[in-house]
């Protein structure tokens, strides 16, 4: 039934936003239940879109499908299915929430959908087998009960996974754009900056520069127009935090940018997103259209006279463009070359030489929450020098891979063994890598470290933008150092010599070490070169490039020594230091490896134990994978053992 009242379709005054929120809340509550299917990249990769389609199909079959708009006309709906952004727990995807009971289903397949529907709608029961199972066998009914979530504190990710990112009215219903309305009504730009400064918010892009200070400096800088740029050039391998936020809660970032623009006096902004993130770009575009339509973005925002609009700029794949001056050059249409030193700050001389405020996605997403709940609320979480929370993409050899948000000051141990659930397959924890190619590896002894910007830095690593990779005893630390350096060498813009030639030479030395050609003086040389590159490079990429090498040299020196002096790779990873070997005692001559070997390097016949002809072997590892577990006859050997046997 229609309420007869004209539906609000735009916010024409900041004070009207409360009414809009209430309308949206009431209307959306007319939908009694719903199935929220995670449509984040991880779950999509596991087939969540098919699960969502199946929910929609079966709901339609029951004659229950209804357009969301009808809710706003007063109609009631029994149920619906919608896609959400990333819930974070990628390990267990595809994830499905049944609301409002909050039932949390994991690893849902298309074939499970009828059962879930019947249990939820017809019998008011739950599908026990799809609930999250603790290692002790007990089940968790809701997300809150799952240890992966209960150890977290979500500020940036608060709405991620609980709203449909393509529906601005859901964001309104949850208090969206309230902070912007508040700022427009009650605050002068100086007061906004004061709130951000008092909150102690530090930039989440990596370096942790105080956001309030940056805003103040940009406001003060002479020049017109000014620009706000959101940095979503998330290039670290193993990091997907920013993308998840854009995909799951794009409006929070837009709102943060509009508040920043108001504070510094800008009317135009850019969102610099990697072109490799097509879903994030699509969601942003949709969010932008809706925000303009509702007049919470664009000209004369909420009738306040304040204008702010933004353009999406798709980065073309250059890691160095995450650096502020390079990013600016890239938007201007040039190579992403960082400006040479000495250079003015981007806040003073940025895009087209105008004052430009550049903040990370997560930083901007935190701003509306800080404005709504106050600086003291924010600074009450975290540590004194790094208030708030940290978002990490937790991956590698860890039970619970996914996106997590934890208060600053939490120990690495709590992250790895609490939220992360420890190392799988009875593996042994070896190191945690943070900060991607700019960061370092910390060993088990450092698990007690309380994580924040400063503690990680003094331990020889870095917060970075939030990649956190767990390594176990099967990871070779020299190889990890080489891996990151190879990445930086590839991504070096080539402008300054320390970075271009220095890191290349370091990579050559590391390649020698991992291929058994290491020399006794190599470690000292690596350290000396590393220090030189840090001192002499012009931008953050070069200045941090040696970190993975230096930190592994510091904490895992014995592994370098084994490679150099014993020509052994203790983790059995470095190809040129290992050989595959069939234990004649264990080999049952089943012929599986023999058939699978692509280079025909395996000799043998029925009842005759097989032998690998080392000169033909290309060490692809197929024999190890095909040898049945019950025989386990194939193994990798290195160093002394290798010399003794062969």
């Amino acid at each position, binding site marked *: 039934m229609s309420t007869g009242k004209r539906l609000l379709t735009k916010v024409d005054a900041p004070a009207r936003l409360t009414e809009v929120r209430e309308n949206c809340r009431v209307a959306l509550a007319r939908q009694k239940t719903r199935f929220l299917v995670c449509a984040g990249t991880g779950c999509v990769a596991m087939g969540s879109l098919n699960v969502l389609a199946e929910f929609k199909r079966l709901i339609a079959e029951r004659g229950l499908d209804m357009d969301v708009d009808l809710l706003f006309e007063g109609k009631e709906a029994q149920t619906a299915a919608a896609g959400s952004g990333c819930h974070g727990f990628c390990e267990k995807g595809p994830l499905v929430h049944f609301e409002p009971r909050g039932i949390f289903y994991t690893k849902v397949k298309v074939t499970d959908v009828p059962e879930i529907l019947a249990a939820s709608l017809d019998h008011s029961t739950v599908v026990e087998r799809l609930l999250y199972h603790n290692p002790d066998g007990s089940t968790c009914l809701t997300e809150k009960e799952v240890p992966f979530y209960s150890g977290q504190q979500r500020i940036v990710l608060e709405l991620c996974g609980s709203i449909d990112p393509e529906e601005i009215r859901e964001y309104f219903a949850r208090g969206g754009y309230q902070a912007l309305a508040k700022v427009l009504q009650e605050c002068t730009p100086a007061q906004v900056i004061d709130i951000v400064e008092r909150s102690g918010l530090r930039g989440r892009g990596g370096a942790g520069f105080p956001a309030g200070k940056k805003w103040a400096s940009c406001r003060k800088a002479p020049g017109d127009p000014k620009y706000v740029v959101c940095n979503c050039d998330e290039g670290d391998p*193993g990091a997907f935090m920013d993308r998840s936020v854009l995909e799951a809660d794009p409006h929070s970032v837009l709102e943060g940018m509009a508040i920043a623009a108001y504070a510094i006096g800008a009317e135009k902004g850019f969102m610099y997103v990697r072109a490799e993130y097509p879903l994030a770009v699509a969601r942003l575009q949709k969010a932008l259209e809706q925000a303009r339509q509702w007049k919470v973005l664009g000209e004369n925002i909420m009738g306040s006279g304040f204008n702010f609009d933004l353009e999406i700029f798709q980065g073309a794949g250059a890691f160095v463009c995450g650096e502020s001056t390079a990013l600016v050059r890239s938007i201007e249409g040039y190579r992403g070359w960082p400006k040479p030193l000495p250079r003015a700050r981007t806040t003073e001389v940025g895009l087209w030489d105008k004052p430009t405020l550049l903040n990370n996605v997560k930083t901007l997403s935190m701003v509306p929450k800080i404005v709504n709940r106050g600086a003291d609320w924010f600074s009450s979480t975290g540590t004194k020098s790094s208030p708030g929370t940290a978002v990490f993409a937790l991956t590698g050899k860890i039970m619970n891979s996914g996106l997590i948000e934890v208060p600053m000051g939490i120990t690495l141990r709590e992250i790895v063994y609490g939220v992360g659930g420890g190392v799988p397959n009875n593996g042994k924890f070896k190191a945690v890598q943070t900060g991607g190619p700019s960061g370092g590896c910390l060993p088990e002894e450092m698990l007690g470290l309380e994580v924040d910007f400063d503690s990680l830095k003094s331990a020889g690593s870095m917060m970075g933008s939030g990649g956190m990779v767990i390594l176990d005893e099967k990871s070779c630390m020299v190889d990890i150092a080489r891996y990151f350096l190879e990445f930086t060498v590839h991504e070096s813009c080539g402008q300054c010599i320390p970075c271009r030639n220095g890191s290349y030479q370091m990579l050559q030395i590391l390649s020698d070490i991992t291929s058994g050609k290491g020399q006794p003086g190599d470690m000292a040389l690596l350290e000396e070169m590393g220090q030189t590159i840090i001192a002499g490079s012009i931008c953050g990429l070069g200045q941090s490039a040696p970190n993975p090498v230096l930190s592994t040299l510091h904490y895992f020196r014995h592994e370098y020594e084994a490679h150099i002096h014993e020509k052994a790779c203790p983790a059995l990873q470095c190809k040129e230091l290992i050989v595959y070997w069939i234990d004649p005692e264990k080999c049952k001559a089943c012929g599986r490896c023999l058939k699978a070997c692509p280079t025909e390097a395996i000799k043998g016949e029925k009842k005759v134990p097989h032998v690998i002809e080392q000169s033909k072997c290309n060490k692809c590892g197929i024999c190890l994978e095909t040898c049945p577990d019950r025989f386990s006859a194939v193994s990798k050997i290195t160093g002394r053992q290798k010399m003794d046997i062969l």
Partner: protein
Amino acid sequence: MPMLLETDEQKIEHVFSRFKGVREEIIPILQTVQDVFGYLPEDVLKEVARFTSVSESRVYGTATFYTQFYFTRRGRHNVKVCCGTACHVKGAAPILEAFERELGISCGGTTEDFKYNLERVACVGSCALAPVVVVDDKVFGLMDVKNIKECLTVEEGEQQ
């Protein structure tokens, strides 16, 4: 150097009609050109230079800086082996080598029949599924050297 076909000229005109022709549009223009042609043909780069009044060498210099752009004809299907950190520690390197063997090309190459490209990428963000391979838009997770053929047979099935 082959002459641009009339249809190519029309395609270029169509791309340019969406832009003003100023320097700061170079990257978006090149992205659109690549969407249309699949790569950046040399002749089209010259047209971009003319359109934006920027020298050919600078357009080329900008384009080659970014890894997104290709300068040779590409295959119909793109095999991307993720070599992000999570995939690396779970064994992406042997998988990449297995694809090189299977397709008979090295990483970055295109098969002779222009069916497949093979490239390594740094993180597709599906780290929980590591190691990951993406063929066109389809994600294959938890890969090992034994099952790489599955990624390619699916494509061949769709081809018929």
